[in-house]
């Protein structure tokens, strides 16, 4: 596909998601209390969108991933939350 064709197919969808992300950050700002590591993880990933690197999706996924290599001793729960708690102090 040409770049124009990609924009024709996906621009409105990307625009929608960009505004949703902006509105989410505004909503967090308006709310009270301390944010946990998830907000910091998103803020850490945001600059990756404007990088010249061609693998932005992969980079964002890596920014949200557990980078360690050693199995943990036991599970404290079953679920995943989408960001690695150890990513930020």
């Amino acid at each position, binding site marked *: 596909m040409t770049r124009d064709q990609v924009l024709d197919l996906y621009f409105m969808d990307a625009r929608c998601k960009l505004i949703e992300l902006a509105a989410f950050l505004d909503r967090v700002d308006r709310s009270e209390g301390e944010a946990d590591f998830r907000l910091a993880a998103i803020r850490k990933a945001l600059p990756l969108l404007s990088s010249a690197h061609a*693998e932005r999706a992969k980079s964002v996924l890596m920014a949200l991933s557990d980078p360690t290599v050693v*199995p943990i001793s036991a599970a404290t729960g079953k679920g995943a939350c989408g960001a690695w708690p150890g990513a930020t102090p």
Partner: protein
Amino acid sequence: MRYIEPHAHMVSRITDDYEAMRMAGCVAICEPAFWAGFDRSSVDGFYDYFCQLTDYEPKRAAKFGLPHFSWLCINPKESEDMGLARDVLGIIPEFLKRGNVLGIGEIGLNKNTRNEIAILEEHIDLAARHDQLILVHTPHLEDKFKGTNLILDVLRADSRINPGRVIIDHVEEHTVDMVLDAGFWAGITLYPESKATPARAIDMVERAGMKNLWLNCACDWGRSEPLAVPRTAIEMGRRGHSKEAVDALVYGNPMRFLSQNPRFQLS
């Protein structure tokens, strides 16, 4: 359009889903064993579940003209309890004799624990001893990258395992290359939020090539969409991919992998 749904948890879905999938061109459904959303309290719960997968669910699917196949295991979410896991591993061989069982799956890791790895190794040993295909679940979200690396290490450590007979599912942009480069098949799961969207799935296919890749909806009791595969096939068409290329991805590839088990026959 024709397609094979190689990963769907139909025990969690309503009959309208079967009908919709059939109408969209589905010609076969494969159902791996998974977590019920709660921990089963004994091996008896798994015995009943395996009966459901190998006896009742194929009859329900047949009402809609759909062949139904299954994979058996204890899901990694329940393998932290190694005693229960080993009890379940002990009853799997008798079910492997049933005509719609394709292999061992979906095994793998959830939180990347030592116990999960031990039970993964025992599942792989079971598959090797019974010459079974393997379907691997990779962990969710932040645990996926680490877990996929650990799973690859475990699989590569067992010299009996032929990577061409193993599919590693739920790959995303940060894991697809490591799976394919190691010679394994890779599955892309289409979820509204927590895995790949149709657009991202096609991006991965365009970048990695469609050899040894399949798409699946993995529909279950959570947010998921039974028609995600045909929806992605339509998206491929919108991008200008040929009908032949779409058919190769959503029908030809799962057919090629699954036919390694002679039980996978579509009339």
